[in-house]
């Protein structure tokens, strides 16, 4: 029975590794995510009310379309909320994007400066790529690490 349990745990480990093998993110996924974040921050910091609303709508629709394309290509979806320890990278990206959005709004409302908003947008673009790829790598390693 001990060996039967070991066999079953081995089957589970193989299944997790198979999911990790499927989770190959297209090269364009994270750059587009970064562009969506950057555009969102620019709209919040530099635009009038209509542009701000359009920025939020475009960001939401673009993110949904990006996720949908990923699901169509890989046939698997792992939400950042259900990713276990790897989800901290998705959480970090969400937190950073949220903080940058507040900062961008504040800069746009309280000052006439434009360059800080462009810097935030650049940082958002980089964060989308770097943290997104860290999430992917951590998730795959976690799935292959064991049961």
């Amino acid at each position: 029975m001990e060996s039967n349990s070991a066999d079953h745990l081995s089957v589970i480990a193989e299944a997790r590794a198979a999911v990790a093998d499927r989770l190959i993110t297209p090269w364009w996924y994270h750059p587009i995510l970064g562009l969506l974040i950057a555009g969102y921050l620019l709209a919040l910091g530099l635009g009038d009310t209509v542009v701000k609303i359009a920025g939020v709508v475009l960001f939401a629709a673009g993110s949904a379309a990006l996720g949908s394309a990923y699901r169509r290509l890989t046939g698997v979806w792992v939400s950042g909320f259900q990713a276990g320890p790897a989800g901290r990278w998705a959480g970090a990206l969400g937190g950073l994007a949220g903080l940058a959005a507040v900062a961008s709004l504040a800069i746009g409302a309280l000052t006439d400066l434009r360059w800080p908003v462009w810097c935030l947008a650049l940082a958002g673009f980089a964060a989308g790529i770097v943290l997104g790829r860290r999430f992917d790598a951590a998730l795959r390693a976690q799935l292959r690490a064991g049961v």
Partner: protein
Amino acid sequence: MTARFDDVVHAPNRLRICALLAASSSAEFAVLRDILGVADSVLSKHLKVLQDAGYLAISKPTGRGRVKTWVSLTAEGRRAYAGHVQALKALLDAPDTPIDAPGTPVGSPGAP
């Protein structure tokens, strides 16, 4: 998490399906079929058993192109699978643990 054998999860193909779905949020029917290496009918049968047990949710999102079937574990299914894995680990750690009562918590005071 209580270690608990689950008859529904225990069958090898259903254990693999649960492992695949527990490692993801959702997966497409064809992906499950390809990874398991079984026929559509075999996969459908196992998915039906898991769905009837309340462990699985099946959706067919409409949109452009061919409609694809997506499956995911329910919260109850995730709990049952996690408990089953704990039971397997408990057995491996303590091979003398009796397991002749599927559905019984392993190592709990009420276990035989």
